[in-house]
């Protein structure tokens, strides 16, 4: 049996009076790619942000690699080192070059030797196809290139899990492919991934499990073929017919 990387039990999250997550249960095994789909406002991004504690849950359990994480008593900085995150708007550091962006956390958080970190960073940039952009500032990059740098930056901390929060939603259509290709490669290497996306092609091709969220709950889940070709719930059918 594969190792369980993430287990979420009865997760609750509210913003004021608004209940965004209502008793969500989810588990993700090692090397699995789980794709979260659903309309905006369904809670999928919030769920993702709860997993690395950018949002703090109001109730329930979050277990990362077998250890329940309590935001009050755990050092969240250590947990986050194991859980990389890629954002919709890239959030690259604009005052640092591409190379410095990738090296920042390994050097400052893990106290890696600068030369070592630079070597690793260049390998990662090569992997995402941007070794020629190492000394460029983010402002000079296209959206697709920025997102690939962001992926390299997250990978530089050698995380066990990668979270993607609508990584292609802010991109021009012709740039989506290059980012998805990078993510697919990562999935094939066995990275455990949780991906919020509207790219159903990616979900069909790469996901081990697709999770449909609606109204702060997991409405239906299954393999891509179960969910896309043979959805059981009416809501799921409605959602799929509205986007496909």
């Amino acid at each position, binding site marked *: 049996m594969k190792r369980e990387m993430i287990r979420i039990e009865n997760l609750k999250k509210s913003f004021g009076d608004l209940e965004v997550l209502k008793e969500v249960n989810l588990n993700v095994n090692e090397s699995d790619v789980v794709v979260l789909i659903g309309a905006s406002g369904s809670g999928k991004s919030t769920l993702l942000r709860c997993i690395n504690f950018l949002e703090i849950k109001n109730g329930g359990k979050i277990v990362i690699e077998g250890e329940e994480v309590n935001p009050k008593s755990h050092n969240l900085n250590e947990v*986050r080192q194991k859980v990389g*995150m890629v*954002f919709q*708007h890239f959030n690259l550091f604009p005052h640092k070059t591409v190379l410095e962006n990738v090296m920042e*956390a390994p050097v*400052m*958080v893990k106290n890696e030797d600068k030369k070592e970190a630079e070597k690793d960073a260049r390998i990662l940039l090569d992997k995402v196809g941007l070794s020629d952009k190492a000394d460029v*500032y983010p402002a000079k990059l296209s959206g697709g290139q920025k997102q690939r740098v962001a992926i390299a930056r997250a990978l530089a901390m050698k995380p066990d899990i990668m979270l993607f929060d609508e990584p292609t939603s802010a991109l021009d259509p012709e740039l989506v492919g290059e980012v998805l290709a990078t993510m697919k490669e990562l999935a094939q290497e066995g990275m455990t991934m949780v991906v919020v996306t509207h790219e159903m092609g990616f979900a069909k091709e790469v996901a081990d499990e697709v999770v449909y969220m609606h109204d702060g709950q997991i409405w239906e889940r299954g393999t891509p073929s179960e969910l896309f070709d043979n959805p059981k719930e009416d809501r799921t059918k409605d959602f799929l017919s509205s986007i496909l």
Partner: protein
Amino acid sequence: MFDIAHILDVLIESYPLFMKGLWITLKLTVVSILIGTGIGLIFALFKISGIKILNWIANIYIALIRGTPLIVQIFIFYFGLAELGISAFWSAAFGLAMHNGAYIAEIFRGSIQSVDKGQMEAGRSLGMPYGLTMRRIILPQAFKRALPPLGNQFIIGLKDSSLASFIALSELFSIATTQGSRTFDEMTYLIIVGLYYLILVLLFTLLVNMLEKKLSAGE
């Protein structure tokens, strides 16, 4: 009244005296602005910390400074610190620093909050602690944005330093008033001292512009 030849004569003649005043003004300005920037940064961080008591401290400090005239503050510092044996120069420097600090705190607060909140999230998601993310990611971007209003505040600070003449510090302005009343030629000395301030401000503006250009290079 505006006899240019006469003004030039006095300008050349009084030059050594004014240089002494200029030196004190510059020292006073630089010291009070450096300390004021430090104070401003600390109180800006207090304000955005989200910790209630720190918010309160910062708000009270800023309200007190903004709500009272600088001249009152300078006298309070002068008489208060004199008892501790602190010189007129340093009490003026502290007074001006506290004053500048309140305004600089607001400048920094605004510029820190103007940095996209995704920057903090990106840092935190990489496992960087709050303080480290603030120092390495947020503040460098905030400083750059703060530079134009900071430059403005520095110019105000330079001109405000003339109020130190009230506590018998012989900076630029006090040289002008003492020389003016000694020679009964107040207007000439006031025009001259105005020129000194004008040149200082212009030079400083140039310096800030250069710094801005340099900092924005590359992005």
